[in-house]
């Protein structure tokens, strides 16, 4: 059995205890709600996009340490990034989580996309049930992007 230290890295616990970018954005910001049907967790993602750049992002809702810290790190990583870079980051992150692409093929890591702190979430792959926790915020982010 993989050890818990692979899962609960210090940086993850830090984001869990002190989540960044918590809150809401008023319309016209886009807003999507993601559900993890297995555990009932919910995440709200609010996005402001100005001139093709994510100018602000806020996260609401409740979840476990993995979904909350993933959401927190996601918010830091996408804030200030152009939308196409955000999409590339989502893809890279999903690849790290062993999520296949639309055609069911593995996603090759794109070396030009830097994961930074998000690499701390790599250990989640060893706990397959928790992958859904880690990807919840990212799927919700994509939905919020679609809404514009």
């Amino acid at each position, binding site marked *: 059995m993989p050890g*818990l230290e692979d899962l609960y890295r210090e940086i993850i616990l830090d984001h869990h205890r002190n989540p960044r970018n918590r809150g809401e954005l008023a319309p016209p910001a886009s807003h999507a709600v993601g559900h993890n049907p*297995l555990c009932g967790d919910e995440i709200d993602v609010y996005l402001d996009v100005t001139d093709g750049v994510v100018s602000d992002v806020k996260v609401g809702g409740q*979840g476990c340490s993995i979904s909350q810290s993933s959401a927190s790190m996601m918010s830091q990583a996408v804030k200030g990034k152009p939308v196409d870079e955000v999409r590339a980051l989502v893809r890279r992150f999903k690849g790290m989580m062993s999520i296949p692409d639309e055609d069911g093929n593995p996603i090759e890591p794109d070396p030009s996309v830097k994961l930074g702190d998000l690499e701390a979430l790599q250990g989640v792959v060893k706990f397959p049930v928790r992958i859904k926790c880690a990807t919840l915020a990212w799927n919700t982010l994509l939905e919020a992007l679609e809404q514009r």
Partner: protein
Amino acid sequence: MTNAQLDVAAIKAQFPLLQRELNGAPLVYLDSANTSQKPQSVIDAMSTFMEQSYAPINRSAYQLASEATDAYEGARTKVQRFINARRDREVVFTKNATESLNLVAHSWGRANLREGDVVVLTQMEHHANIVPWHMLVQEKGIQLRWVPLTADGQLDLTTLPQLLDGAKAFSFTAMSNVLGTITPVQQLCAAAHDAGAIAIVDGCQYVPHNVTDVQAWGADFLAFSSHKMCGPSGVGVLWGRESLLDAMPPFLGGGNMIADVRFDGFTTAELPAKFEAGTPPIIEVVGLGAAIDFLDGIGMASIRAHEAHMAALAIATLTERFGDDIQLHGSTDTEVRGATFSFAFRGIHPHDLSQVLDQRNVCVRAGHHCAKPLMRLMGVNATARASFYLYNDEHDIDVLADALDGATDIFGF
């Protein structure tokens, strides 16, 4: 309270899976409310049946087929006695309790409910006893009313007569899979009948743990699943009052459920075949029969006494050790609760909690337990849930408590 009721060590020894070690340590299985482990006698009954007697049931003249049919129908008689039904033709085998409840909603509901008709549920139902009725709301425009809960997770019956006024059906759980609350089934059935409604009992969490007597209850339908009572998955039971089942249209159509089929129509078979379309889970039904023999051999009253003891001990141990850091949902009165506990612990999310407990081989469920309306009412997205059965002993409670302490080390609250 002493625990002279059950020889748990001897019982546990009959469950091969519970002998298994994971990562060098024994398993502490505390998820029987989800699904139970299987004793050797059930495993043997199913494999012996496959090795010796397996054949189609009901359709063939050869000796082997009649042996298989006897085994299948013999299990039906065991179920009948186990729940004290009047006749074995009132016992219908389904896939699980979910299908049983859907059968009632679909078949009885479609025949008997019209726009504006009222069905009463409680706020602590499992999705299996909610969604089939929501489907009738969408399809037929029936109305749902909900029996509220008290602060300690029992049914608040003060407004029951008003809620039942004019209702056609009252469908409720005999024991909550989230709170462990045991409801006053007999009283609820009587209240339903006083209002002219039928009483549908979800016995999924009750039948595996208590003496069940549908006649003493005065119930009209009872649904439960084999897999939660030491039997295999893949089979469930719907018991129904004969007159109601007889009057209902069939649920699924196909082989076995017909008396005759012509180019211009069909007539249905007699009970219980009328509701058993297609090849049933023959092997699983035989396994369920063996599970009933196993439980009967121990005695349902003794099992209930053991679980009341375990519930009292779990409450005492966990509150003594953790005080306000643990919040046990539901009643502390073991007269009205079984040994299924949802809890919150030191603000640690249930997913994280169960992950950490898993390091000590303690298996608990984390999630909404298919009762999202109740979760919303409780103001949580999820809880951790520990549930005890006849093979759990006092030591398991201590291991749980030790493992909970371990969770604090990681999350440092």
